[in-house]
């Protein structure tokens, strides 16, 4: 018997609204479809109406986890448009925050993977240790999530020696803990049984479907913008691109944990060779008409911004492609012929950060399976009517 199960727009496995339609046969998924549009905020249109400075904070709010990657991608593009050269120290701090963000994002993901697999203890421990890096980011920037440390022409805050020592100390602890989690993740039988061989994405399909980030790297394709298109400080740093060739969720876990180790290495390198000098230069308010493509390796993969200026203090066009969108076609491929039980794991394995969409609700009539779409306004009206017609709560009978 074939039937469709709707995962989303509201579902405990999804932290943000997206709709996955699964056609299943028993416990096996035969077909998958992704519907977006539940969360569309019109960022690109909005950006055309704000000035260059305001847009930093707008792009920051594209994503709550990789907030720094969007601003960095935007800011390094705008700096090219304005022909600014940020001071070395500013750049080092900017990419230091970028790597710390990668650590926090990957640890967050590792915990979520544990949670999706029902391994809540693992999730609790990983997130407890993730607090170390969150606290470091808070000390550097003054905030835990939206660091707002980027400014056009550099960064907004400097770090001193005491903070440097604290970061090094935190990284040393995290290194130890990450090693433990790598050991644990590879040794706990029930966890490995859930991850190994799940969500296969062969190398040629990963390339054809233009997947990005750890998803592709776990299929043995070594693409990493930091290596391929080394921006700012990355050609001065010594790091490896972590890959795995198992093409499954376990491979994605391994790639991410290995990347965390590379990030620790890079953070130490950056802190040890932190140049002196100012952290920012003053930026003009306007940019000459030009266009620029800015690429950044976000924790989830390649982030690309296309920015076009028209000589005013506002961009003519800002095109944002967040890495998750690039991974959706590959996700559909991975879900096919998997188990229902693996949906959250496979979907979580691309580390989804759903930042494109809107409001509509699908009602499925349980008796005849008819689907109807209700708009938000209509739902609201229904809710209000239901509320008005409902008996007064004060008269409700207390159950005992």
């Amino acid at each position, binding site marked *: 018997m074939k039937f469709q199960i709707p995962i989303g727009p509201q579902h405990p496995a999804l932290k943000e609204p997206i709709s996955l339609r699964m056609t299943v046969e028993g416990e096996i998924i035969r077909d998958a479809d992704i519907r*977006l*549009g539940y969360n569309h905020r019109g960022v690109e249109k909005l950006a055309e109406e704000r000035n260059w400075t305001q847009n930093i904070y707008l792009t920051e709010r594209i994503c709550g986890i990789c907030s720094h990657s969007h601003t960095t991608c935007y800011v390094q593009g705008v700096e090219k448009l304005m022909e600014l050269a940020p001071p070395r120290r500013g750049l080092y701090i900017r990419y230091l925050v970028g790597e710390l963000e990668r650590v926090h994002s990957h640890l967050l993901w590792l915990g979520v993977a544990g949670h999706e697999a029902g391994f809540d203890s693992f999730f609790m421990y990983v997130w407890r240790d993730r607090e170390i890096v969150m606290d470091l980011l808070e000390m550097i920037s003054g905030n835990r999530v939206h660091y707002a440390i980027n400014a056009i022409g550099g960064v907004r805050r400097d770090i001193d020696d005491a903070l440097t020592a604290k970061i090094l100390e935190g990284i040393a602890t995290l290194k130890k803990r990450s090693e433990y989690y790598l050991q644990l993740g590879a040794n706990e039988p029930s966890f490995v049984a859930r991850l190994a061989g799940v969500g296969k994405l062969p190398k040629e399909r990963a390339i054809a479907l233009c997947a990005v980030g750890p998803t592709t790297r776990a299929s043995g394709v070594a693409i990493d913008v930091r290596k391929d298109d080394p921006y700012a400080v990355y050609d001065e740093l010594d790091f490896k691109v972590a890959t795995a060739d198992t093409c499954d969720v376990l491979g994605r876990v391994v790639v991410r944990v290995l990347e965390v180790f590379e990030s620790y290495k890079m953070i130490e390198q950056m802190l040890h060779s932190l140049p002196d000098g100012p952290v920012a230069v003053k930026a003009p308010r306007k940019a000459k008409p030009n266009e620029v493509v800015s*690429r950044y390796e976000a924790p989830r993969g390649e982030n690309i911004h296309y920015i076009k200026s028209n000589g005013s203090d506002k961009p003519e066009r800002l095109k944002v492609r967040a890495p998750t969108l*690039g991974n*959706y076609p*590959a996700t559909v491929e991975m879900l096919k012929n998997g188990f229902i039980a693996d949906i959250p794991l496979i979907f979580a394995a691309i580390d989804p950060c759903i930042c494109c969409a809107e409001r509509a609700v699908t009602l499925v009539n349980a008796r005849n399976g008819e689907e109807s779409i209700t708009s938000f306004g209509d739902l609201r009206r229904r809710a209000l009517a239901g509320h008005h017609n409902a008996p007064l709560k004060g008269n409700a009978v207390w159950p005992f």
Partner: protein
Amino acid sequence: MTDDELIEKIRKDLAGQALEVLHPDRRRIFLKVAPEALVSAVRLLRDAYGFTHLSTISGVDKGETFEILYHLATTDTTVHVRTEIPKSHPHVESITPIIPGAILYERELQDMFGLSIDHIPDPRPLVLPDGWPAGNYPLRKDWKFERPEEIIPGGKS
């Protein structure tokens, strides 16, 4: 292969088709082709130079025309294939048969600019809601969003 060598080769291979080749920065090559030559140009880039990775497709409303940029990348460099189509006849051929990963970007382009991608395998709307009124294309410059007046009990100030 350095950028200059690549540009040289592209110029030779796309002799009649490359309308303009710009090289503003390291690893950034902007190539302009006519809309008819788009598919063959992308196919050539994929097959001859290994540009298998499509980063995204950007659309820009330039008043009378739409400009579409296909951001292609290899591990060495990036090529941004640009084409311009008139607003009066906004049709462009789908590149999904060549690069399957392009499907979502093409659907997004259809939604946001109201151009039609010919022979796209899956033309359903992607990012706009189901009840979205037809003929509204948010990223066109003539589409203005009127922000509904914010109702805060007691007013804004």
